[in-house]
């Protein structure tokens, strides 16, 4: 019984990961590519960020309430949303002047 409960704890989140729509961003020469992504409104999405540089970068966004270090030559995952329509800016903490971008949430404002 205890094992089932523990297994549930581990696998329920893992199952939910697979259901999310995925979006990809790359970091090259301290810039985000693409710098803008469009995502559906009121939906939780999975954002995968690959850092192709030789130095770490931190994906940071006050609008999205997310911060995550992406190590050199590694890929990190961030869940964002569900969000109402609008524009949500993000930046690279270590290169805030050059590494900037935004998540554009499109769709109607009604919750699912």
């Amino acid at each position: 019984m205890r094992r089932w409960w523990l297994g549930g704890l581990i696998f329920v989140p893992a199952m939910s990961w697979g259901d999310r729509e995925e979006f990809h961003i790359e970091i090259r020469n301290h810039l985000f590519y693409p710098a803008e992504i469009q995502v559906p409104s009121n939906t939780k999405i999975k954002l995968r960020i690959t850092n192709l540089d030789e130095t770490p970068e931190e994906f940071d966004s006050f609008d999205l309430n997310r911060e995550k270090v992406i190590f050199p030559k590694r890929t990190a995952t961030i869940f964002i949303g569900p969000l109402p329509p609008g524009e949500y800016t993000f930046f690279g903490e270590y290169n805030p002047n050059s590494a900037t971008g935004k998540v554009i949430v499109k769709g109607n404002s009604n919750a699912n």
Partner: protein
Amino acid sequence: MLINSVVLFLRDALPLLLFISILSAIIYLRTNSLGWLVKATFFGVLGTVVLSAFIDRVSEGFDGFGFELLTATIHIMAYLSVLLFLRFNSIVLATVAVSLLLSVHGTNLYIYSSGFWSSASVNVNNALLIGSILGFGISFSLALLLYYGLSASMMERWSKLPMVVLALTAARQITEAVYFLIQADWLPTGQPLWNTSAWLSDSSEFGHLINALIGYEASPSAVQVGLHLLALVIPLFMIMKLNQQPTVTEVTP
């Protein structure tokens, strides 16, 4: 860059130093010794070195959420250590709590510092250095003020105040853990219950201070608020229950 590096230190050094100052105030007045802090620093630095060496590989575990899950686990362990410290008054548990938090915050500072320094041109390195010194200076000064304030309160009739502040700081560890578990999608995000950004922003200086002390969030979700309150009520209840002057037992970790 100067402001960035100040904020960086406020974000990681401030909560750690405030936590240390509260425990130091409680323990020092009972034992007249800060030897436990030397041990905690040793184990914390050791933990930082080990974590820093493997953190990039750890971060790729659990579908890219290894860092969040490890950090959340360490914060939960630190919270449990504080609960056990309140219950058993053992310095070993205070040492464990500080070592754990030093490991995780030390690793964050190492990652941020290496990221900043490797990305920066030679021209901005001075700004980074000055910013780091300023950030550490501000954090250390605030921690020192808190230490002397709490030490003074223990000699007056506000003798339980340091324990209450410790409970607030302990609950902050759960708020941190919840933040990382939400980011990893292990807990539901939910809609914010309120938004006080206009009144006190997370990114403001005072916002950082209140966050470091009690885990302030400008727009928390129901899960964050609920688990924070639960994490706060448990140690407060323990303090009320143990309403006698506890004696700390010196145990070598």
